[in-house]
């Protein structure tokens, strides 16, 4: 089966006159099969959101340089004209954002925001679009959908808003949905509901999902394959179960190890990865994780660690042994 989305050697650099470029994404490559759920995991500043915005071509027009290729069905999205890309957004690929309140237009009703997409991409007439919109709200589990069509975003709860956004994003049954930390702004019980809903909907519609998150709990319950990003590069990629059973990269290992356990002895110090993300990415002549790595060797700072790929991708010269 040919992949639905192929990202190859994607680089995003933010440019500013008189200053050196700031590289946010540095040669990221991954693919997504139709109907698959792929995770992009990493801490703040690792380039996961920038990657998703680059795929949607939503980065600001000026002040950045995007190179590499993003292929969907064989077409390079980066080479499409603006209007061709606009045709695809919402129809072939769409996106859900982190903050459900600010992602909805506060001055127009929820119904209008759903029907807008339907009239735009599916050429529906007003009445038909309204019926379909009520149907969509019903499918994402919003009670009394007809009435909710006339509600304004501030009248819905956080969970409802995210449900509405999911309904809007899936209105035209896109084949690819990018979810950028869709549950971060919600509390834990609602998080689980939203994740279940997403999982169920993408299974029903055959939509592939790229899940961007810093929360390994989200990944564990949802993703088929997981890409771990650090400093703008993918450092490890594996099937979900493999990754959780045998994390090989010291960063992944550290991330998994730093999840506090309820059954640990009380008073135990929480495990953490030392240091914090460095803005300047020294990948060119060293491993960017080396300064924080407990398994650092001299060779780590001698050059960029090569990528090994046997069954799973790994960018490390001294990986954690599979036990």
């Amino acid at each position, binding site marked *: 089966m040919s992949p639905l989305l192929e990202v190859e050697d994607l680089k995003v650099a933010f440019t500013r006159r008189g200053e050196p470029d700031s590289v946010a994404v540095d040669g990221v490559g991954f693919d997504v099969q139709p109907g698959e759920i792929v995770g992009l995991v990493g801490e703040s500043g690792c380039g996961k959101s920038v990657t998703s915005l680059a795929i*949607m071509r*939503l980065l600001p027009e000026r002040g950045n340089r995007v190179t590499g290729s993003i292929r969907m069905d064989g077409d390079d999205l980066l080479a499409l004209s603006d209007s061709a890309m*606009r*045709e*695809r*957004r*919402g*129809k072939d690929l*769409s*996106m859900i*954002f982190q*903050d459900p309140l*600010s*992602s*909805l*237009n*506060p*001055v*127009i*009703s929820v119904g209008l925001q759903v029907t*807008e*997409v339907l009239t*735009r*991409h599916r050429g529906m007439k007003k009445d038909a679009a309204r019926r379909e919109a009520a149907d969509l709200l019903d499918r994402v589990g919003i009670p009394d959908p007809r*009435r909710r069509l*006339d*509600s*304004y975003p*501030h*009248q819905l709860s956080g969970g409802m808003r995210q449900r509405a*956004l999911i309904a*809007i*994003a899936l209105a035209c049954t896109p084949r690819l949905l990018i979810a950028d930390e869709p549950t971060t702004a919600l509390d834990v019980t609602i998080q689980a509901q939203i994740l279940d809903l997403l999982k169920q909907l993408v299974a029903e519609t055959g939509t592939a999902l790229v899940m961007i998150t810093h929360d390994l709990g989200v990944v564990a319950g949802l993703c088929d394959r997981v890409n771990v990003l650090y400093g703008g590069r993918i450092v490890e990629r594996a099937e979900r179960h493999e990754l959780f059973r045998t994390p090989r990269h010291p960063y992944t290992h550290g991330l998994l190890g730093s999840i506090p356990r309820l059954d640990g002895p009380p008073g135990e110090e929480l495990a953490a990865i030392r240091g914090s993300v460095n803005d300047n990415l020294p990948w060119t002549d060293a491993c960017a994780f080396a300064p924080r790595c407990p398994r650092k060797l001299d060779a780590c700072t001698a050059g960029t660690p090569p990528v090994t790929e046997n069954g799973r991708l790994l960018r490390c010269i001294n990986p954690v042994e599979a036990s």
Partner: protein
Amino acid sequence: MTTPRGSLRPRPSTLLKRKKTRIDDLGGRSLTADALVRLRRNPVAIVGAVIIGLFVLISIFAPLIAPHDAGAVFPELQRTLRPDSIPGSMPGFPLGSDQNGRDFFSRLILASRQTLIVGVLATLIGLVFGVVIGALAGAFGGWVDTVLMRVTDVLLSIPSLLLAISIAALAARPSQTTVIIAVALVNVPIFARLLRGAMLAQRDSDHVLAATSLGVKRSAIVVRHMLPNALGPVIVQATLTLATSILDAAALSFLGLGDGDPARAEWGLMLANAQAYLDVRPALAFYPAVAIILVALGFTLLGEAMREAIDPKGRR
């Protein structure tokens, strides 16, 4: 503890009623409706609205309220005029005569029309052009923005009254139209600058990004997603601008750049003409001045209250 039973809880019927309104609340009350509710609870807004309401009513029904024409000279009044006295109240003329033997009360009432027409038109014209310029600059950015905003900067750099005087003075014969145009032109850059800023903020907002991610057309994004969200401060400013427009128009008339038609009364001009008779009959200056101040105050109070209602958290 002698409270009679049942008084602690609302009766079942009120409970039911309350629940019903709660549910109804959910069915679509827009932010605008919310703001209106807050506005109605604000005494400052009520005072402003009452002043404006009275002013508008008086100016609409001015010909019915005023007993005489604004330009009519009455011989019986003229006969009583002396260099050192202008008659006050007398039968048929509630506030007496002005310096030319015309009915002062009628002129005062009829002048409210000129003020309303000039104030509203100057603000509306300024608003329309300002919104178009601001929306274009904010939506397109780039060189469109640069060109439009530099022109705006130039207009803003000239003191508003000076600018209005210069424009009004360009006209061969000052009239009501030239006053309206002059004051409107002063208002244009204020609205343009304000809307452009709000549009820029909208352009970077999450919901515009979300709309873009759904493939919504650019025109729809500007008209449906950016403009309505950016208009709030502009509407508030329009109310405040009504006050300054009225003051500017009065100032132009005061300086002799206003409507020269003696058949029409205008507060600014009445004030100017009353200057010479300040020691003879100060009321001639006092009433028009109070009228101008009251109307400007009304619009300012309502404008400030609207600002609060639209943005209840901020600025104070």
